C-alpha cells in the first residue's frame, strides 16, 4: 500500500479522528518503508522540562529542517507523528514552509547527486484544528488518506492529487495485524457521479390514487394558454395603457333614495355622537 500512496513522493497526509485512530496505520506504513529506520525521539521531553541541557537546537522545527539536509542517497520516507503536535506548537505558516521544503524534490543541491525521492507521511488529527490549517495542509499534500469505517471494519478514503492529472479517489478497506502488517481487504473506486441503483425503479406517485391527477390533451391546452392574473404580459400592458382611451367596461350606477344619508364622516350611520 505504501508504494501506491507514496509513488510520486511528496506529502502524504493521514487524517484520523477520535473514532478511527490512524497511528496504527502510520506504524504499519513505517514498517513497510523501513529498510533503514532513523528515529528522532521528540516524545520524551519535547519542551525540555527535565532541563538536562540536551535541548534540540531550534526545537522541533529545527529538527525538521535538519532532516532535509541529512537525507542520504536513495528514496527517503519521513514519518511525522504527529503534525497536530507541530501545529499546536508552531505557527502554521512555518510548518507549511518546512513541509513544503521537505517534500519537494531537491533541485538546488550543489553537488551532482541524483534527485532524491522524498515521501513525507504525516499524521493529522482532524478535530484539533480549524478549517484554515486543515485546508492549508491538505493543499500541500499529494495524497490524502482519511480514516473512517463502519462497524468494526476500518477503511481509508484515499485522494490522489497528481500534478497535471485528474483527482482520483478510492476507498481501501483494511485491517492491521498484531505485527503491524497491513491486510488489504478490497477497494472500491468511487465514481465521479453516483449511479442510481438499478434494482430500485423510480416510483410514479400518481398511480394507485382514488382521484384523477392526470390531464387530458384538451385540458392541457387550456391550461397552457391561460394567462395568470398577476403576471405582467404584453396583453395586460396594452389593456392597462388603453384603459384611459377606450370605453370603460363596467360602471356603477347609484341612485340614492330618501333614506340614504351620504354623510362622508359616518357612512354606516353607527356612530353614537
Amino acid at each position: 500500500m505504501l508504494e501506491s500512496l507514496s509513488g510520486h513522493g511528496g506529502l502524504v497526509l493521514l487524517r484520523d479522528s477520535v473514532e478511527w485512530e490512524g497511528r496504527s496505520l502510520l506504524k504499519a506504513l513505517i514498517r513497510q518503508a523501513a529498510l533503514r529506520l532513523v528515529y528522532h525521539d521528540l516524545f520524551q521531553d519535547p519542551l525540555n522540562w527535565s532541563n538536562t541541557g540536551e535541548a534540540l537546537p531550534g526545537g522541533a522545527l529545527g529538527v525538521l529542517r535538519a532532516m532535509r539536509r541529512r537525507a542520504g542517497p536513495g528514496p527517503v520516507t519521513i514519518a511525522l507523528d504527529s503534525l497536530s503536535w507541530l501545529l499546536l506548537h508552531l505557527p502554521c505558516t512555518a510548518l507549511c514552509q518546512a513541509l513544503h521544503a521537505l517534500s519537494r524534490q531537491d533541485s538546488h543541491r550543489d553537488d551532482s547527486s541524483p534527485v532524491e525521492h522524498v515521501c513525507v507521511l504525516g499524521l493529522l488529527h482532524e478535530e484539533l484544528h480549524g478549517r484554515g490549517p486543515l485546508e492549508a495542509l491538505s493543499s500541500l499534500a499529494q495524497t490524502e488518506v482519511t480514516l473512517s469505517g463502519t462497524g468494526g471494519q476500518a477503511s481509508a478514503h484515499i485522494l490522489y492529487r497528481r500534478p497535471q492529472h485528474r483527482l482520483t479517489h478510492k476507498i481501501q478497506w483494511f485491517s492491521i495485524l498484531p505485527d503491524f502488517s497491513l491486510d488489504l481487504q478490497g477497494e472500491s473506486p468511487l465514481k465521479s457521479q453516483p449511479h442510481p441503483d438499478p434494482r430500485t425503479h423510480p416510483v410514479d406517485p400518481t398511480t394507485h390514487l382514488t382521484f384523477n391527477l392526470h390531464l387530458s390533451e384538451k385540458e392541457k391546452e387550456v391550461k397552457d394558454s391561460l394567462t395568470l392574473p398577476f403576471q405582467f404580459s404584453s396583453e395586460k400592458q396594452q389593456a392597462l395603457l388603453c384603459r384611459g382611451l377606450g370605453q370603460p367596461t363596467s360602471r356603477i350606477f347609484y341612485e340614492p333614495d330618501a333614506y340614504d344619508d351620504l354623510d362622508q364622516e359616518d357612512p354606516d350611520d353607527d356612530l353614537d355622537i
Partner: protein
Amino acid sequence: MFPELNNLLDASPDRPEPGKLTLLCDAKTDGSFLVHHFLSFYLKANCKVCFVALVQSFSHYNIVGQKLGVSLTAARERGQLVFLEGLRSAVDSFFRAEGEAPPLRFLREATAGSLQPLFQFVRDALEPGGPGAAGWARPVLLVDDLSVLLSLGAGAGAVLDFVHRCRARVCCQLQGNIVALVHASGDAEDEESELLLNGLSHQSHLVLRAEGLATGSCRDVHGQLRVLWRTPWPPAARGRSLTFQYKIQDKSVSFFAKGMSPAVL
C-alpha cells in the same frame, strides 16, 4: 471498584495493563463515580498511586473509598497513596514564601504559564527509588479533573503538554497508567474545552464517556456509558465500541444493555 465495570472492560486488579492512558469524560452528568472506581481498583491492585484531586477534599474521597472497600487514610500512611489536595494547595500557592515551588504555581502568574511544577510534583511522587516506593506494583497517576485547570487559567495547550509529559514519564518510562477525568461541555463555543477533550482523546488508549440520557433524568437509569477502545485490537469478542446504561447505587453501580434496565423489564 465496581465488579461489573471490570467485567465490561475485561480488567482485573490482578493484571492491570501497563502503559495505558484511560480518559474519563462526562457530558451532562457526573462522571466522578468512574474516578472512585479507578482509585479503588488501583489501590487494590497494589499500585503506587499519585492522586491529583482538584475538585473535592480528601475526606470526601475517603468516605466514598470506604464504601468501595479501600481506606485512603491507611493507604496514605503506608506510602501507597500520594494525595495532592488541590483546594488546599491552591491557597498555599498564594501564601507560601518565594523560592518554594508549589505544584499549582501557575495560579500566581499573570499570564498562563506551563504546568511544569505540577509535572515535577507528579514525577517526584512516583519516583521508583523514592521513600516508600519499595514493594508497590507499577505507578498510577489519577487526575480529578483536568477541566478545572482550564477554569483556573491554564491554556488547553499547556494542559495537553502536561499530560503528554506525564505520559512519557509514567506510561512509557515507568510502565504505569494514567487515568484522567475531563468534562465535555457540549458547547461548541467553548473551543478550549473542545480542544482539550479531543487532544486527550487522541492521546488515550481507552475512552469512557458517561452521558446523561438524551430524554432527561430518570430514577432507574442514571445515564449511559460509552466505551471506546482506540486500538486496532480491542479485547476479543467485544468490538471496539460498546454502549451501556447504568444505575448508581449506594455501594455499587449496575450496568445493563440499552433499554434493559431491570425496572423496565
